[in-house]
């Protein structure tokens, strides 16, 4: 049964430099990379290629020994030119020099009607499309063993400067529909959560269409699950995926190839003429950024400013991201009377209304990466609850995680949460805790225990 839900709690961070709905004409990057760090919970890689090997798009590069069967595959065809490792030989990235024209590994083209679950699973696991399936609890790549009770897709993104779902999916309706048909082999209980009826995914067949209205985090799939059909325990598995991930799955079965082509928004206050680029998963960003970013004291973020990861200017896009945000670094001290803690502030956004904070969420801001304070003990209460539209007490949960109290974590609802759901809490935190990192520590402890 479809539901219609209005959420009041939350907070919108409006930033300067939203991407125009146009696609820039830039050359494709020369290299692409697959980074294990893109996949939360990735543990021990087993390499399947070595430097100098030539791969097609969809050929396996490595897998996780802790979850054999799920292949991490090449997003483009070409030569493996580097396998970069960090401290203790930790695998950082597998770099592929892209061919001029991409060669695709052939997967069986099947009509979705005759497709059976086992074949669908096999093709997805081999091609790398399985990586699009992120399971809750824990928000990690879906476990092969567990079938999902339901599948949830958020068809809109409320994060700051998020890519426009309708724009990036234009013309892909058939793939989205095919994706739904494939997923229906796993469960008939598929929920698509849209913001309004003009959403590109509102017309898809075979799924329950729910409507969500509200400010961020209304677009977070975790929040939506909480309101539609909440996760009940650590064994109660549901799958989530992004609309672009759904299109990749649909394309895999209709075209017979693992095609990771996608539109990526290049946005943020430091980007001149912010707009979209068409590229593939794992793209190196230096070409487009050298064209569009002139400043040097900037931070390049794969993803959005709440949940993203800082990468080098010549770094690679993370697997799930369709947004690159570039903002100024905030590495300068602030004198307390001129622009520090006693001065009136008009240009730095705050959720709070404390003395001198005059910047509310109605305007757009150019925010930098300053911590804007120092880490302190938890002092104020009741703030996190105002930005989390879920029946959960974040502070109590965080304290349970800090105390390694497993029973308490479970009872307080840790299974319903992923980092992105508590990202706003981290943003508004007066005491500047690393809320998302604390949550992940708790999730990992329960998952690996």
């Amino acid at each position, binding site marked *: 049964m479809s539901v219609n839900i209005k959420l009041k709690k939350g907070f919108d*961070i409006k930033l300067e430099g939203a991407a125009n709905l146009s696609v820039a004409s830039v050359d494709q990057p020369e290299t692409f990379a697959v980074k294990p760090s893109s996949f939360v919970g990735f543990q021990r890689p087993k390499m399947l290629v070595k430097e100098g090997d030539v791969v097609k798009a969809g050929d396996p590069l490595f897998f996780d020994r802790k979850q054999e069967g799920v292949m991490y595959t090449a997003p483009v065809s070409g030569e493996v030119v580097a396998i970069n490792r960090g401290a203790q030989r930790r695998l950082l990235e597998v770099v592929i020099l892209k061919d001029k024209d991409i060669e695709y590994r052939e997967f069986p083209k099947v009509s979705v009607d005759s497709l059976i679950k086992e074949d669908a699973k096999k093709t997805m696991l081999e091609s790398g499309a399985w990586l699009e399936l992120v399971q809750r609890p824990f928000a990690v790549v879906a476990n092969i063993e567990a079938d999902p009770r339901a599948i949830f897709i958020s068809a809109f993104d409320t994060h700051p400067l998020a890519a426009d779902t309708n724009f990036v999916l234009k013309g892909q309706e058939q793939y989205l529909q095919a994706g739904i048909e494939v997923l229906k082999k796993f469960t008939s209980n598929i929920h698509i959560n849209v913001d309004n009826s003009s959403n590109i995914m509102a017309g898809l067949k075979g799924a329950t269409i729910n409507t969500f209205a509200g400010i961020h985090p209304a677009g977070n799939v975790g929040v939506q699950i909480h309101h539609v059909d909440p996760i*009940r325990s650590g064994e*109660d598995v549901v799958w989530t995926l992004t609309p672009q991930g759904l299109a990749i799955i649909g394309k895999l079965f209709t075209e017979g190839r693992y095609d990771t082509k996608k539109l990526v928004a290049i946005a943020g206050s430091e980007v001149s003429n912010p707009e979209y680029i068409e590229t593939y998963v794992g793209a190196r960003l230096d070409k487009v950024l050298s064209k569009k970013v002139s400043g040097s004291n900037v*931070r390049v973020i794969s993803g959005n*400013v*709440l*949940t*993203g*990861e*800082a990468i080098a200017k010549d770094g690679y896009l993370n697997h799930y991201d369709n947004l690159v*945000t570039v*903002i100024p670094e*905030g*590495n*300068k*001290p602030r*004198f307390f009377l*001129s622009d*520090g*803690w006693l001065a009136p502030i008009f240009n730095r*956004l*705050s*959720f*709070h*209304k*404390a*003395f*001198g*904070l005059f910047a509310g969420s109605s305007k757009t801001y150019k925010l*930098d*990466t*300053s*911590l*804007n*304070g*120092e880490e*302190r*003990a938890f*002092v104020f*209460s*009741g703030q996190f*609850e105002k930005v989390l539209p879920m*029946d*959960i*007490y974040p*502070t*109590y949960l965080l304290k349970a995680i800090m105390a390694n109290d497993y029973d308490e974590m479970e*009872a*307080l*609802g840790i299974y319903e949460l992923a980092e992105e759901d508590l*990202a706003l809490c*981290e*943003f*508004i*935190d*007066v005491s*500047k805790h*690393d809320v*998302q*990192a604390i949550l992940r520590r708790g999730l990992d402890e329960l998952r690996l225990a």
Partner: protein
Amino acid sequence: MKFLHDLLEKQKPMFEKGGKLEQFYYLFEAGETFLFTPSTVTKSKGVQVRDAVDLKRMMMTVVIALVPALLFGMWNVGEMHYLSLGEEASFMDKFLHGLIITIPVVLVAYTAGGLVEVAFGVIRKHPINEGFLVTGMLIPLVMPPTIPLWQVALATVFAVLIAKEIFGGTGMNVLNIALTARAFLYFTYPGDISGDTVWVSGAPDSFSGATFLGLAQAASNGGVAVTDYIASGITNFDFSVESLVIGTIPGSIGETSVIAIGIGAIILLVTRVASFRIMAGTVLGAIAMGLVMQAFAANTYMSLPFYYHLIAGGFAFGAVFMATDPVSAAHTGAGKWIYGVLIGIMTVIIRVWNPAYPEGIMLAILLMNVMAPLIDYYVVNANKKRRLKRATV
């Protein structure tokens, strides 16, 4: 300001690991972060931008909210002083008298508490917290103007040590620190912080400076209606509703004026630094209990109109500045309502039914500080039960 920052940065290595003054790092940190918000940036994973707020600003907001009560208190100390002498004096004379009385109390509280705070920060290696900016201002405001300075110092040291530092510092304390200081004096040196003679500075010996609450108790013991008793010439002060609201009555330095405290309340509520639920709950609790008392009216104190409880004594100050201390109060939304309402109820009960303590708000808040975790426990448990119920559907 770059030269100042460069100067500080030059000293920094001395205080960092391996430096000569390593053990004083947090003292240095306190000074440096007071002057400059550091150039620290967000980590590579997690949020990349942070809210403009920090703990210093939140705490400063409370200090600013206290300023009206402080300024009025200073003037009122002088006003009461000259009233007791029966002398006419100018506004400035009164203010100056109050200033001379109040500033040393404030300085002693900040110095004594600050020293303990710094000593603990250095020994226990934790940051010196901004919370003391508020505590150091609250303590003087709940002291009578005649308080001996050594007692202020002793009480502050006791409170910071026993109520806060032994629990792990700011954010970990169970009891409100300023009220612990006051309660400490209340039970160790009752003669200097309660009774009829401590509320007016430099009053002649023959002068009775009983407070409204003290008189109400006496009236009730004598079986006379409180308002009649007060109007009977027993006191030199005007305890009309107007005076109680404006605050031209004897009492602790910052607690007398409902208007000045009300300005502070507005600042705290508009800036959302203090919890509306707690403030409103406390007021509603007191009104409810006052009305219940009035309904039964077994003695003359009980039949006192309920609104007197809101404007007399330290109720307003306690409800606005003490009950809303975020650390020692309840932390959950529903818990804050319960916590506030119970403080209001307890205050009136202690005032009216407990002959030993004329003022009830201090003890009511301290009692509820102890109860707050229990309230939260049940509120959070209800949340867990809701989740558990879902799991078995």
